[in-house]
């Protein structure tokens, strides 16, 4: 067998860095379906997984890919899929099954331009709200938006760790630009990589209840074949995992599914502040657009405009408190994203009209140039 962690310094694409991050996190199953601009993740893992004792399978569609990923996870194996817009749409129902049955796994969306087939080879950030609400029913989700190949490597590991800790599908909402750009990526020594695995049940097997939560509202998770006789269903279920079609049980289940995320926001949410301490204008951005934004901040500062950047690494759950806190001390906000206003809506919601908020957005297909942000900074404030 080959080593799963290829320690070293590389010049690789974001997609390849993502695949290497998955291996470093302990991912040993990938089920996917080819789609630009995520295909390279699958291709890289088709080479690497069998050599580290894992399995790669190209399924017949993204619905099957997502189902297989959930099945593998219940087999006790860390699993992942990667796709882009159209495939992400197809995965939605089974992402919901993953949420309801609390199945750890990672779903990567290397975003391209939609709606529909759109501009298949060009990047966008148009699936951010789909990531939040794309599957039916109400739920909480975790979505990360790394801004460089190096960060994609680390955040893929982190996505696995979060999914194993909180038992849900974690979404990596990267974009074509980050997925396809080549940059220096350092893969550290295996000893320096922190990985988390799902908490396993202890105690008597016949007394075991599949969804009896521990202190952080997450229940320990056995794998199939360990003698627990688990029943796993997407129907509303009680703590035994048994279907129960009552409003009360549904509420209890929902309280926990939502509570395990909302109750651990400090552990989950990551943001990065850039020149924000004395800023009068806060730019909010993520993924490739955060690069546009930090360049715009530097330009603005040269012109005496006190701008700063709040970079969202975690997009969902949304860092509401951070925005509210900023709203008390800045004169206004600018959201930069390659869509026509999705995270912008969240920013507005959190500001609650206290200060003005502007959007620098695009329908997609290209990186937003820093000049466009600078113009708004100059004119609007």
């Amino acid at each position, binding site marked *: 067998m080959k080593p799963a962690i290829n320690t070293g310094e590389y010049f690789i694409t974001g997609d390849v860095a993502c695949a290497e991050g998955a291996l470093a996190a302990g991912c040993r199953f990938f*089920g996917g379906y080819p789609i630009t601009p995520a295909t390279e993740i699958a291709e890289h893992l088709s080479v690497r997984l069998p050599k580290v004792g894992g399995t790669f*399978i190209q399924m017949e569609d993204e*619905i099957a890919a997502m189902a297989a990923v959930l*099945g*593998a996870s219940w087999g*006790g194996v860390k699993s992942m899929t990667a796709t882009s817009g159209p495939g992400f749409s197809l995965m939605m129902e089974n992402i919901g099954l993953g949420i309801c049955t609390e199945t750890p796994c990672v779903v990567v969306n290397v975003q391209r331009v939609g709606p529909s087939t759109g501009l298949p080879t060009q990047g966008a950030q148009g699936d951010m709200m789909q990531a939040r609400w794309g599957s039916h029913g109400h739920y909480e989700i975790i979505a990360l938006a790394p801004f460089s190949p190096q960060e994609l490597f680390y955040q893929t590991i982190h996505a696995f760790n979060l999914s194993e800790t909180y038992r849900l599908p974690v979404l990596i909402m990267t974009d074509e630009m980050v997925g396809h750009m080549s940059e220096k990526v350092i893969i550290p020594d295996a000893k320096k990589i922190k990985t988390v695995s799902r908490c396993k049940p202890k105690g008597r097997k016949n007394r075991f209840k599949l969804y009896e939560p521990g202190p952080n509202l997450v229940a320990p998770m056995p794998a199939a*074949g360990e*003698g627990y006789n688990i029943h796993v269903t997407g129907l509303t279920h009680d703590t035994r995992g048994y279907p129960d079609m009552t409003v009360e049980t549904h509420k209890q289940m929902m309280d926990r599914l939502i509570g395990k995320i909302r109750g651990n926001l400090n552990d989950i949410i990551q943001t990065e502040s850039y020149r924000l301490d004395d800023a009068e204008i806060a730019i909010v951005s993520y993924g490739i657009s955060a690069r546009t934004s930090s360049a715009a901040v530097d330009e603005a500062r040269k012109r005496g405009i006190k701008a700063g950047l709040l970079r969202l690494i975690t997009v969902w759950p949304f860092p509401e408190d951070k925005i509210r806190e900023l709203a008390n001390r800045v004169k206004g906000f600018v959201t930069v994203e390659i869509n026509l206003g999705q995270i912008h809506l969240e920013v507005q919601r959190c500001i609650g009209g206290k200060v003005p908020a502007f959007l620098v957005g695009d329908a997609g297909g290209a990186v937003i140039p820093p000049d466009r942000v600078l113009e708004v900074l100059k004119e609007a404030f």
Partner: protein
Amino acid sequence: MKPGHPPGHPLEDLLRTDRIPSIWCPGCGIGTAFSSCLTAIKESKIDPKKVVMVSGIGCSGRAAGYVKLDSFHTTHGRAIPFATGLKLARPDLTVIVFSGDGDLFAIGGNHFIHAARRNIDITVVCVNNFNYGMTGGQAAATTPSMAKTPTTPYGNPETPFNLPLMAYASGAVYVARWTILHSRDLTESINESLTKTGFSFIEVLSPCPVNYGRRNKEKPLDTLKIYKDRTIIKNKAHPTQVDLDYEKGIILGKFVDVDRPTFGESYAKICRQDKPE
């Protein structure tokens, strides 16, 4: 057993008795097919800890909720790809997919043919009741031509699938068809396929008196009478010859039992092996 207590169910150790009674209607055939499946698991002598059941959505799909094994009730049509992921992650497990005709062959048809083509080492038991029982009896991909259902009020204008033929053409290594009246043969077939390596498919013809029978002038006993009088057991019949024809007679039996490498075996050989530099 304490004196005065009724004897337990013979399959008690494989049943979630705390979930009984089931949702299945009186006269429904699913329970019989399910019992055969449990008996086969028992007779196969495979450690039940290592046997897993995966179902989709439908009346038949509820089976996973009653079996006292690790069991998964997934989404409509997706039991097979879920089982594929589970089996590839855990080759040590024996994986049974137990689901309905609508689930496996309409919404999930694409997954069926691909799992058979890949020869994923699982056993698929399909309860074919010719309709979508759970949602009220609408037409399925198996509904006979001209049959009346709530979505074919003038008679079904479509042609149904011949399921064994589809399984055979897609690459299944074991293909059989029985009715719930042939529970001994059915049990034997399931038992055989559990220990067989590769993609096995067993079709079980089963009455849905409530939603299908009622609209097609078949009382529960009529259906069983058809299963008795108009079936012909013909092992090794070619799958092209077994389309369901009540006039000619319904052909039952084991149609295919061949061997070829599974996905897992080929993957290990072709992809896992380090090639000499």
